[in-house]
């Protein structure tokens, strides 16, 4: 056993060392090509372009091998000028042998008074683009990359709806057995508009859930919760780092003892990194000032049935996705102005970290220090409400924490797919 572990560790270290060398072959199935000496890995192309400068093409398109005879070729490229020479060229790609059926037609239209050499280069560029799909199916795909030379605005489209998207949705989730049933329902209507300059999100939603237990001899317990509300968010972009906006919200919830809360909250955000890098890293600082009018379902422990509240909140959120894994941390503090003793501090963090190739850790946790349960009802919760977690209870904190690791070694680069007897089941995740 010890011997095996030692061997495993050695393997893991070795694989990790390997990972540091760039461009390790991505597949164990297909042996990687030898340098230059194994032209057989390159797609073999027969060019049918009378009068073409094949030598120039060879220098421009290095990821294929141009062969002189059609029988040896895997792809035939036929370039034919259109009726009027100035009108351009048709470029037809025909897949042969293992690429049978992979055909395409591209074209090239020269600009008025273009030099013949530029036209030839233009046709060559189109041939290069058309051949990529064949090369992508060979082991050399990992050495190919495609770059776009420009930056475009994502809104450069002709859109008659001016980027508004409307959405209606309804969902029901039911389960049961002979002595237990539960159902939850969720419906929403939303209208959103997202452009780089302005983000608008509005929605109206409702959710209901109930559960039912039968203990035999007529003893049945039934309980339900519901909530509904609407929200609107408008955010204006002010350059690559700043944004301003506001929230308007209405909410009602039996779990939280809220009959109706109306909130208006202006807010401002600063991202230390440019927003354009958001899928890679973000460090956002958000300040929010919220004014609420609250009506409670039951009188609260502070003997209130309704009140007006002013609250401020500051949050700092950091997110990063890198080749070693990803991390996110968020810290948020808030307090009410009428009594600064009513406050809350929340910390949330998540880390997925690969120490070596094959060994990774995952940690995920949150902690909240709670001093602001203004809505807590004065009446006691029943035994069943407590066990079924259907009412918010008095607490000074809550936390959740999870940690995990995964260590894998062996032929982890094997690309074989074998679907026989199922592939280890399906996972379904439903999130609300």
């Amino acid at each position: 056993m010890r011997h095996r572990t030692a061997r495993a560790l050695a393997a893991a270290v070795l694989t990790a060392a390997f990972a540091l060398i760039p461009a390790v072959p991505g597949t164990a199935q297909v042996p990687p090509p030898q340098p230059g000496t194994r032209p057989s890995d390159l797609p073999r192309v027969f060019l049918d372009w009378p009068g073409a400068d094949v030598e120039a093409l060879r220098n421009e398109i290095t990821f294929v091998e141009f062969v002189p005879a059609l029988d040896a070729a895997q792809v035939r490229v036929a370039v034919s000028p259109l009726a009027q020479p100035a009108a351009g060229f048709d470029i037809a790609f025909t897949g042969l042998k293992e690429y049978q059926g992979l055909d395409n037609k591209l074209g090239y239209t020269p600009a008025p008074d273009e030099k013949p050499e530029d036209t030839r280069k233009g046709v060559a560029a189109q041939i290069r683009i058309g051949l990529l799909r064949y090369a992508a199916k060979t082991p050399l795909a990992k050495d190919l990359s495609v770059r776009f030379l420009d930056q475009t605005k994502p809104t450069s489209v002709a859109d008659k709806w001016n980027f508004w998207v409307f959405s209606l949705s309804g969902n029901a989730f039911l389960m049961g057995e002979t002595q237990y049933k539960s159902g939850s329902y969720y419906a929403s209507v939303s209208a959103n508009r997202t452009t780089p300059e302005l983000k608008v999100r509005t929605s109206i939603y409702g959710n209901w859930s109930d559960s039912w237990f039968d203990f035999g001899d007529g003893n049945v317990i039934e309980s339900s919760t519901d909530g509904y509300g609407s929200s609107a968010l408008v955010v204006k972009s002010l350059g690559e780092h700043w944004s301003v906006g506001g929230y308007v919200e209405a909410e009602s919830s039996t779990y939280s003892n809220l009959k109706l809360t109306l909130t208006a909250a202006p807010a401002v955000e600063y991202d230390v990194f440019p927003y354009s890098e958001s899928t890679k890293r973000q460090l956002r600082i958000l300040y929010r000032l919220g004014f609420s009018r609250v009506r409670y379902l039951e009188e609260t422990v502070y003997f209130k049935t309704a009140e007006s509240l002013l609250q401020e909140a500051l949050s700092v959120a950091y997110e990063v996705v890198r080749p070693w894994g990803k991390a996110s941390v968020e810290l948020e503090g808030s307090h009410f102005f009428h009594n600064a003793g009513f406050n809350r501090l929340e910390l949330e963090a998540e880390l997925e970290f690969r120490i070596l190739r094959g060994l990774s850790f995952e940690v995920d946790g949150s902690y909240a220090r709670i001093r602001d349960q203004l809505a807590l009802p004065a009446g006691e919760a029943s035994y069943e409400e407590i066990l079924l977690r259907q009412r918010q209870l008095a607490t000074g904190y809550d936390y959740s924490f999870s940690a995990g690791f995964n260590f894998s070694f062996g032929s982890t680069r094997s690309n074989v797919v074998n679907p026989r007897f199922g592939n280890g089941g399906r996972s379904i995740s439903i999130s609300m």
Partner: protein
Amino acid sequence: MRKRLGAAGALVLAALLGLGPASLPAAGQTVSPDIDELKKTAIRVFLDCDSCDLDYIKTEITFVNYVRDRLEAQVHILITTQQTGGGGREYTLSFMGQNDCRDLTDIQKYFSSKTDTDDETRKGLVKALKLGLMSYVGRTSIACRIAVDYTSPQATGPARDRWDSWVFSLSGQGYFSGEETYMSRMAYGSFSANRVTAASKVRLGLSVDTSKQRYEFEDSTVTGKTSSWAASGLFVKSLGEHWSAGAYVTADASLYSNVKLGLSVAPAVEYNFFPYSQSTRRQLRALYRLSLKAARYHETTWLGKLRETTLRGSLGLTLDLREKFGTVSLSVEGSHFFHDIGKYRVDTFSIVNLRLYKGLSVYVLGGYSWIHDQLWLLGREPTYEEQLLRLRELPMNSNYFAAIGFQFQFGSIFTNVINPRFGSSGGGGLSISIH
């Protein structure tokens, strides 16, 4: 101050990544045409993928337009995944031309490894997507602004597999949550050793889990515990494009089901009506299994047994389809004991997710079971708390679950824009992902 900090951080990170100014794009030789005009005629793409980082793809590939509805697209890219023998995933990218690109279809593949991080996987997938898209992009005028780089591969010897296709994996996870009057904790651990080749498949696994919940009342405490473990082995031999034969070996225990130790061995045979090579898009598999099981119970069962040995036959039928119009997955399994044919169960399960018409999609996900086989049930009544916290299996004739929903969208068809300001969440809603 903040700004300076940000810049310093960026510098350090860039240095760590080895990004130099050298990777700046080379400027085009000729004066570039109005790029925003070219973008208007760029290929319209419908990206159909449950497990992709769509925001990342949209920020990395900007020479196409993304649309929300499949019928608007010139190319519908359906991305399906399957597990590989090495524990990674095989991504099959089916490019299906539509409208004026109807004549052009293609399939590209990308393989991720189990040891890749999310960032490596999304980078690899973007590369495969870009290469596959080129056949379509070549038909639009934005093609003149695309550069292709090719670096001749370095000398590397052919990869030799010292592990003979075996993959070992050890994992553990703990979950803790609580507040002043409530505490819950769960722990899970597993070890697996798998060897998957085209000719055979061996999967060996061991898993353990335990959980505990505690509720505090003024004068008492209610605690609920469950635990279980299982060891399993699966051996399958391939017999051509349609047939496979194999066996399951299992040992398990579960407090919820009153099983102290169960040992079973089950030879099985499977027939797939579609060739196995099409499995990422369609499968219709029938599996017959004959299982011999010896069980010892924690407490005497309602039939007065503390141990017993049973023989059971079961037949299952599974249909999986992944098409342009959506996903269909249906399965039904029936089984019975040989010593008493009246002790049987039938389980059905379905996932149907359809894009019916422009902007309208519906899903139905559900299962129904007829249950007449609970030999292992407790001889006594479970306590009130055991029932409320669902710690013990209760007698039942049937159980079900169902999720049904629809979504109807209209308005702008383009989904090019990513705007991360004030966070990306919000708007609410329900999302279902199936892998």
